[in-house]
């Protein structure tokens, strides 16, 4: 019986590797809030919009000019890399600060 269970698990991992990985790595969607200094030219924010949209795993985002903040929803936490995110904001012409990551509960 035990042998049968073990063989079944091994076969499941071989046939459904994605499922095995998903069980190990999936952490769910996250909301990343970043303070953006220099966000004083709304016409210039188009560059920031493009940089964010080009990042893998971005589901939605909002740029708050008055508050000087950007909120980005990633489909899964695995898509968020702090250094890459900061560099995207800098390449867009602004200065990132105070990055906060929150899990989004369903």
């Amino acid at each position, binding site marked *: 019986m035990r042998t049968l269970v073990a063989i079944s698990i091994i076969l499941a991992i071989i046939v459904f590797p994605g499922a095995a990985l998903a069980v190990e790595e999936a952490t769910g969607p996250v909301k990343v809030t970043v*303070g953006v*200094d*220099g*966000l*004083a*030219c*709304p*016409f*210039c*924010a*188009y*560059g*920031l*919009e*493009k*940089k964010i949209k080009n990042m893998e795993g971005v589901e939605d985002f*909002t*740029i*708050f*000019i*008055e508050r*000087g903040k950007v909120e980005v929803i990633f489909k899964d936490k695995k898509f968020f890399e702090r250094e890459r995110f900061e560099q995207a904001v*800098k*390449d*867009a*012409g*602004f*200065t990132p600060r105070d990055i906060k990551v929150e899990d989004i509960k369903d």
Partner: protein
Amino acid sequence: MKVRILGPTFFITFALSAPAFSQGPPINTDTAVISGIEGAAFRSFFKYTEKSGDLGGGRDGELSVVSIPFILPYEILPNKLLFVGKIPYTEKRRKVENGSSTERLTNSGFGDLSLNLKYLFYQKDAPRQSTRAVFSGGLKLPTGEDDERGLPPALQDGSGSYDYTAGFIISRFKERTGFSADVFYTLKTEANDFEFGDTLNYDLALGYRLIPAVYETYPAKQLNLYLELNGTYARKDEAGGQKVADSGGNTLFLSPGIQFIPWRTFLVEASFQIPVLQDLNGDQLETDYAVLAGFRWLIF
């Protein structure tokens, strides 16, 4: 020398005392903000300039110039290095009356191509504000026709010469208001035994975001107002190695303007320029006014 002092004095006092601020790029003054293009943009406008005056010896002249430049900025390094290509299409009409005789000259065509680089060397950001400074340098190539028969150098499409420009731009933005200033020197060279005088361009721009009062979330429609001072000091021209007495001088314009940004990648703008100082050498046509209307588009 014609001088109207009150406008510029008020403007300079206000600009130096007001905190500095945020909307879009100024209309007649350059900006140190080179981010946001993310690839390429396109700018063009229609500018109409009218000049008139006493040319001495009983001659009166009038000149109207229509200029439509095509300007293409392209980002080479993100937020660091920007290339700008520019070529104007112009139509020039001059009328000179001398007693009972009238001479009319007209010319139109594409002028000289200008290639420019802007390099951001200073950036200081804080919440809802930014101060930036850019070094700009470029070259004008003699691509426009410069040897059309019977036309003086000023009425040709191009100058025939390679000219070199270098300058600085500083911009400061905070919340609803923005301030930009630039200074450029252009070294002109000789062509066809004629050399236009070198020029020093100096500009100040104060901008204010009228609508919305509070910019909550991007993107939102935006209406900006501008008040600019735009000046040009030109040295005398040289013809055949001799200075041309009736050339060169200093002209300063007061330029109110308005700019509407209806969506994230497009804006329309208009400006009216009134000369407040014209200190020209000898007998020359003076500018009566200039009017500009155009658009900018972030392509990709």
